[in-house]
């Protein structure tokens, strides 16, 4: 596979094309059933033949699409050709590749087949620039080899197989089962899940005919409290178990390796997926902890990159180390990325008197809700005043976790949002633009917000430090300004 010759996907990709658009096909079939049936009757054709013909047509379309989808692994670029009527050729020079993401379902492992998604920094599209739905594992190895060869400007590295190169990779990190357990148990993900399940429960109750509910309630009216508590408990337990299992299967045997300036992650139980990213393409590092993990002294390390490859379709967060002891976070990370600090950097924090602004804003956020409650429920609505307590706590949390530091050529910014603390380590060269904001009242109080823009996925990530003393804010601004 070294020449420029066109390759087809594996034959099994026919199934991928079929299932990928299964819904569309079903819609077409349902739409055509009526007209086709009457047409067949009028001409006295056996319906079996007619519908057989329709299915044959669909299979033919899929086969043609498969036939038209080819890729070439050239010496300096990857070319993907697709389309039946509108011919599409995507050319991706190896040097422009940001991430290569591969995923492999367990049932494809014996066939050595996997799905490849290749991303560049181009930001026209939400989907990856190139998707090879089902190809042999050797394709990735070939692309990797060409990429490294081109990057190093050397002779080809020979036909070493991927397993061998993986073994040579050093250093490496493997998540340990205990950490993964704690990680899964301390996720705040159960809260949205609990909400969703309660909503589902309400929906189901709506759908059951009133008659049945009436007959049941009459039987259990005296037990209603027990029932409610039991349902509530059940929902919480199911949420916890679901969230736990989701996380466990997602990060099962998470491994991170580094090799020739690239980071490579492997993860997953049913679907092993892997992301490869060159270290110098990482725009910033983010250390994330929710409040429970803060107490357990565990951190999560993610990378911000100009690629939408991530462990979650929405967030684009590229997981580097899912869970690590906070005290060892920097030491662990430094083994993989050479520019990060080797140990925790002492941050500047806000003075206690600035906490008020955060608390005030959080309280203002809840005010409309309280006003609505009081308006509609009168005295009982007054109970909504208790919402101010979590608001104050959230404000306090956000203020208490605001921090910043300048470390060599990096800016370190830390903030707290919704009980999650994020610390960003941003090399100066990756700051796309930066600014100060203040209202006229903040001007009077000598305060300003500092905003820094970093490329993240296909979008901009604005990282903000709020209510900094103006002198500190200007120090950061001027430091960023000096090239």
């Amino acid at each position, binding site marked *: 596979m070294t020449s420029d010759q066109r390759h087809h996907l594996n034959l099994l990709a026919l199934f991928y094309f079929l299932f990928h658009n299964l819904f569309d096909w079903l819609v077409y079939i349902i739409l055509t059933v009526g007209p086709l049936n009457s047409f067949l009757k009028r001409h006295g054709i056996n319906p079996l033949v007619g519908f057989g013909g329709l299915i044959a047509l669909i299979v033919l379309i899929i086969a043609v699409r498969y036939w038209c989808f080819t890729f070439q692994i050239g010496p300096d670029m990857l070319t993907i050709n697709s389309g039946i009527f509108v011919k599409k050729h995507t050319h991706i020079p190896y040097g422009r590749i940001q991430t290569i993401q591969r995923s492999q379902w367990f049932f494809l492992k014996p066939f050595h087949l996997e799905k490849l998604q290749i991303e560049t920094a181009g930001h026209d599209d939400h989907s990856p620039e190139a998707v090879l739905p089902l190809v042999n594992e050797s394709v990735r190895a070939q692309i990797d080899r060409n990429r490294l060869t081109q990057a190093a400007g050397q002779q080809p590295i020979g036909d070493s197989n991927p397993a061998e190169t993986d073994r040579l990779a050093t250093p490496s990190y493997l998540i340990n089962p205990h950490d993964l357990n704690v990680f899964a148990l301390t996720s705040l993900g159960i809260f949205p899940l609990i909400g969703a399940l309660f909503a589902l429960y309400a929906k189901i109750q709506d759908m059951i005919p009133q008659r049945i509910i009436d007959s049941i309630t009459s039987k259990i009216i005296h037990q209603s409290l027990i029932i409610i508590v039991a349902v509530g408990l059940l929902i919480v337990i199911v949420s916890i178990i679901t969230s736990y299992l989701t996380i466990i299967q997602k990060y099962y045997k998470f491994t991170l390796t580094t090799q020739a300036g690239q980071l490579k992650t492997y993860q997953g139980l049913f679907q092993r997926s892997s992301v490869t990213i*060159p270290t110098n393409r990482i725009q910033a590092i983010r250390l994330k902890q929710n409040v429970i993990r803060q107490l357990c002294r565990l951190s999560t390390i993610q990378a911000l990159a100009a690629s939408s490859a991530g462990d979650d379709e929405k967030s684009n967060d590229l997981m580097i180390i899912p869970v690590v002891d906070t005290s060892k976070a920097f030491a662990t990370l430094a083994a993989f990325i050479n520019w990060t600090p080797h140990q925790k950097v002492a941050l500047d924090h806000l003075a206690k008197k600035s906490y008020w602004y955060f608390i005030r804003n959080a309280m203002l956020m809840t005010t409309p809700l309280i006003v609505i409650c009081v308006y509609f429920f009168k005295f009982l609505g007054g109970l909504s005043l208790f919402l101010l307590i979590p608001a104050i706590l959230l404000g306090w949390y956000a203020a208490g976790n605001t921090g910043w530091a300048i470390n060599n050529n990096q800016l370190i910014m830390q903030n707290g949002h919704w009980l999650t603390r994020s610390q960003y380590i941003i090399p100066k060269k*990756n700051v796309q633009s930066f600014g100060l904001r203040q*209202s006229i009242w903040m001007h009077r109080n000598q305060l300003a917000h500092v905003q820094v*823009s970093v490329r993240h996925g296909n979008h901009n990530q604005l990282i903000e430090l709020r209510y900094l003393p103006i002198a500190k804010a200007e120090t950061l*601004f001027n430091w*960023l300004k000096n090239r």
Partner: protein
Amino acid sequence: MTESNHLPTKIKTVWRISAVINFLILAAIGIGAYIAFKLFDWHWLVYGAIGFGALALIDIVVELSLVPYRYSFWLYTLTDDAVELRSGFIFRRLVSIPIARVQDVTLSAGPILQSQKLQEVRIATASTSHKIDGLQPEVGEQLRKQIMALAVEVNDHDV
């Protein structure tokens, strides 16, 4: 050229013209709704007509009265290696765009800007995009030259 500059004074004319055009569009919709109401006797259209009429009036009053405010507090600075944009008085904002980070600069001019011999400048980095409402073509050209000169220094692998 490191001192802060106001936008060219002609930009006020541009803003005023575009405020009037916005007014005319909204008013036209309102009047259209009123005519349709008269012709077809669709009662709900009265509210549409009143709504758009009110919106048009509010829009033109606010936009025209804000022109001097916008003009006096909208400043740009072109230094050797950065573009700084400063705006607002009640809500102040200062943004700095290192020229080394700039990916592309787009100069464009619609009919209104053309009539005043100005160009809108849009500066895009790998993640953000910033707009200067109107600049003289010479300034736009200077910006373009500076960016070309500094672009050489930018590492291919930065993004």
